[in-house]
């Protein structure tokens, strides 16, 4: 067992802050790294120490393994936490850590490489008896091979980056006419996002549910699962809303899926926290999708229903401690739900970068916010659009949803567009409210607008427009007084 006193966090944004918070609570010194664009970012200000590691593009900073290892060594860290994204699923990082005498807070390089290679992972699962989705077991070498594999499983098919995850580099192809250009694009995206152009193909299940199992595995062969998360609210394979427990699972099915997840983890020699993702069809059959060999974006929903701090557990496992709990200790307390708040237009999902000039985060009973932003912050164009996450807890699912709707109403991020209005639409959708939904839900959600607040909004727009245009809409108040008044109202601060 190695005492970890100082951790380098090889990430940015909300997850870097999340990890620094766990360090703060456990007396561990946190070390942030940052690109030139991130000098004033929240994770830099939050950590105890912070070191610049290169220019804004992540290939020149957050993805440079040597620079990160060097920074960890020079600052006296014992361990590196990769967060999610960036290097989190790159087996070269744990390998470099071992070579440098550093602890990698995650699995070892070998099991990460095995599970990161989707085709190899599928082979292991087949051998261990975990059900998988039909498809090609090897990366596709050519368009011709892709066409042949698709013909065998039958359309629609999915093209997926072998090194991918998190919905990046995933494309659905409905016909052989679409396949050639989709194959080219998927390869290019895979190369750009993960540095590896390999793409493989599998049968596309029509609107299944996405259900995943959180696991914890120590270095002594002890593996437990921390229940499931339902992540079917997705758009282009990007999760948007996650919850636990899943409405579809009863305790028997939960136990079956939990056992399958533990089998998958043991078969691959995996340790630390990880997630086994499954697709579940309408008959309740589930298929292994992949193992995410890292902390998930959506890990807080599991934390809220189990009371377990997953980042602290990751650190404890990495330092060589045995799991402090067994499967019987893991219960389900109430229900939790997460909405990912991204800098995207809520209807087109186009990125919306810019300057955040007002920020009010939700609070109160049952509301947890994990955020990488702050007021007076310029959202950079270089990185993922995920700004923050809201997670709510309720004694039951209905209360968790009611609290989420309240939280979304309280959330104010001014200056850029965000996905907050999108989440409201999903939460009030009757299918979602009843728990009866699948990965097709987003395309079915209507973006209907009510006209209930048209008049009040028009009044507000008029008054602000008059103010903007400096229209002197009163004769009895002098312009000077008006500005003095405004100055007072904004507390002596106003736009220049």
């Amino acid at each position: 067992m190695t005492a970890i006193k100082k951790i380098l966090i090889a990430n940015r944004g909300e997850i870097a802050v999340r990890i620094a918070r766990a360090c703060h609570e456990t007396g561990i010194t946190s070390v942030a790294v940052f690109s030139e664009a991130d000098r004033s970012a929240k994770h830099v200000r939050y950590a105890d120490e912070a070191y610049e590691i290169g220019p804004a593009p992540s290939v020149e900073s957050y993805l440079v393994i040597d620079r990160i290892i060097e920074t960890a060594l020079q600052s006296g860290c014992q361990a590196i936490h990769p967060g999610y994204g960036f290097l989190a699923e790159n087996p070269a990082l744990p390998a470099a850590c071992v070579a440098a005498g550093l602890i990698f807070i995650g699995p070892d390089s070998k099991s990460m490489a095995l599970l990161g290679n989707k085709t190899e992972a599928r082979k292991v699962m087949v051998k261990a008896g975990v059900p998988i989705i039909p498809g090609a077991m090897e990366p596709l070498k050519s368009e011709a091979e892709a066409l042949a594999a698709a013909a065998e499983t039958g359309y629609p098919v999915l093209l997926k980056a072998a090194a991918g995850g998190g919905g990046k580099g995933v494309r659905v192809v409905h016909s052989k006419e679409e396949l050639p250009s989709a194959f080219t694009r998927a390869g290019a995206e895979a190369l750009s996002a993960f540095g590896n152009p390999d793409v493989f193909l599998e049968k596309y299940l029509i609107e299944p549910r996405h259900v995943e199992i959180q696991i914890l595995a120590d270095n002594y062969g002890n593996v437990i699962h921390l229940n499931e998360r339902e992540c079917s609210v997705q758009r282009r394979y990007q999760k948007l809303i996650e919850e636990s427990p899943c409405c579809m699972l009863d305790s028997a099915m939960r136990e079956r899926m939990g056992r399958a997840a533990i089998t998958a983890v043991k078969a691959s020699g995996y340790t630390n926290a990880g997630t086994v993702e499954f697709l579940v069809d309408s008959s309740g059959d589930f298929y292994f999708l992949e193992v995410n060999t890292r902390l998930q974006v959506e890990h807080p929903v599991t934390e809220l229903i189990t009371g377990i701090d997953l980042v602290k557990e990751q650190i404890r496992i990495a330092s060589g401690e045995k799991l402090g709990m067994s499967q019987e200790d893991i219960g389900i307390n109430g229900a939790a739900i997460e909405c990912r708040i991204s800098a995207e237009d809520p209807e087109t999902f186009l990125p919306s970068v810019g300057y955040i000039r007002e920020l009010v985060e939700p609070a109160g009973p049952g509301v947890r916010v994990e955020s990488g932003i702050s007021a007076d912050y310029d959202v950079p164009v270089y990185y993922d659009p995920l700004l923050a996450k809201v997670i709510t807890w309720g004694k039951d699912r209905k209360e968790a949803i009611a609290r989420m709707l309240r939280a979304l109403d309280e959330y104010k991020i001014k200056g850029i567009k965000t996905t907050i209005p999108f989440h409201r639409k999903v939460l009030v959708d009757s299918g979602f409210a009843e728990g009866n939904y699948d990965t097709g839900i987003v395309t079915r959600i209507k973006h209907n607008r009510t006209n209930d607040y048209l008049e009040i909004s028009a009044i507000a727009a008029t008054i602000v427009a008059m103010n903007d245009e400096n229209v002197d809409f009163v004769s009895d108040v002098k312009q000077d007084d008006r500005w003095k008044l405004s100055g007072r109202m904004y507390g002596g601060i106003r736009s220049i």
Partner: protein
Amino acid sequence: MAFEVSDGEHLLKVEASRLEVRPHDELFEVEVDGKKKVVSISWISPAHLSILLDGKSYNVEVERFGKKYQVTTRGEIYEFAVTDEREVVTTEKPQAGGRLVVTAPMPGLVVEIMCSDGEKVEAGQGVLVLEAMKMQNEITAPASGIITGIPVESGVSVNLGDNLFIIES
């Protein structure tokens, strides 16, 4: 002075005059489509108004995106053009017929040009790929026609609103 406020579907005629300035709010008389009301406005920040109307409390956020006012209240979002009687205050310029200038919907990096200058394209056809926030976004032709100019090239960074290509039909 009366203003015309339009969200594309509805057109409201709004007239506002200040009745009273108080320490914590301003009272306005507002006439909407001929009906008069008194509203209390408290400016929480330049983009955030607290409005009381008939006892109802509204937190209204008003943001300007380009030439439109985007108003958010109670979870609903409206986008308005606001014009006054004397002159156009803010409005979209009508598109020049037959010639469309497609601009960048967000800042990003042009990673691929899929068409060449002079090429004939169909509406919806991909013309170039813009990468931002790690996502590749295909920018498509809004109408069928001929590409008569692509002032960007692969590898170039563009800002929101920069011209990407021109289509003539």
